[in-house]
């Protein structure tokens, strides 16, 4: 192979590589039911330290992506808090992830709705991207092995939580 051919092949490979890299980094893959969910650690919305979904291994976790500027998130917050109070414990927890939001606004939101479940912060939207969300709010039910069992795009209400989430939980109504 001549020098010119090698240069041409390298050029083509570089262009194809850049295209693949662009697609891989910008594309939102989206999780399928049964897929392991991302476990990157995120800072807590209030206070120091960070948490990851691996900290919840062995429990069912309802991961809720929200933002203080999102009106449907305001509408669903009371239902999530009620569900946490009814079902939260050693086997189940709601976990909020405040995404692409100002931390001060997020903290105010938590206080306004009296949310008692843990809240993490995803300022750059990296976790929301890894979960394949297309907006907020979105909710994911993760089983004790860290696999996705249910995905609810859009807001949840008490009825959705009772009919879709509760039956999957241990001891839930089916």
């Amino acid at each position, binding site marked *: 192979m001549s020098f010119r051919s090698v*240069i041409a092949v390298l050029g083509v490979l570089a262009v194809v590589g850049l295209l693949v890299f662009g697609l891989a980094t910008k594309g939102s893959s989206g999780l399928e039911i049964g897929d392991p969910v991302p476990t990157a650690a995120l800072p807590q919305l209030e206070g120091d330290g960070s948490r990851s979904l691996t900290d919840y291994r062995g429990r069912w976790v309802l991961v809720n992506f929200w933002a203080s500027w999102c009106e449907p998130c305001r509408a669903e917050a009371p239902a999530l808090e009620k569900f946490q109070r009814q079902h939260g414990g050693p086997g189940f927890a709601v976990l909020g992830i405040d995404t*692409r*939001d*100002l931390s001060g606004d997020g903290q105010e939101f938590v206080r306004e709705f009296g949310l008692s479940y843990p809240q993490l912060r995803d*300022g*750059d939207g990296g976790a929301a991207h890894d979960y394949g969300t297309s907006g907020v709010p979105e909710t994911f039910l993760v089983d004790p092995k860290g696999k996705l069992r249910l995905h609810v795009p859009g807001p949840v209400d008490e009825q959705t939580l009772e009919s879709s989430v509760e039956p999957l939980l241990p001891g839930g109504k089916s």
Partner: protein
Amino acid sequence: MRAAALLLAALALALLAPAAGAAEPASLTEIEKQVMCPVCGTLLQLAESPQAQRERVFINRLIDEGKSEEEIKDALVAEYGDEVLALPPDSGFSLSAYVVPIVALLVAAAALAIGVLRWRRAGGSDGDDGAARPAVPSERDSERLDADLARYDL
């Protein structure tokens, strides 16, 4: 003596002018042109979403606190990450956004120059006078040409 004093005063003014410019208060209009609305994926200047409105409130609050443009952009990066900046930072991996186009341009220019040189050496011209070399048909082509011409000879 008076001329020397005037010269000194002019020099002092020239030195102080940039410092005075740097101390200008930050403005929302200027910052909006340099940062993104992370949810909309557009410049904040063009965004009207609820998130963009919150971002403007945040910027205005920092302006009221007397923060400089750089301090406000740093605060936005702390909240939203590097992607909030319309132009990537000129350090770390983001530096490649500035370096790669320049390197690509240089490589393309060098490749073009080498290509032209090789073409000229390989016979793109007829030598020192730079005139184009006339195409000389092969013996076989000449025979075919003669045969074709003979066929159409009127």
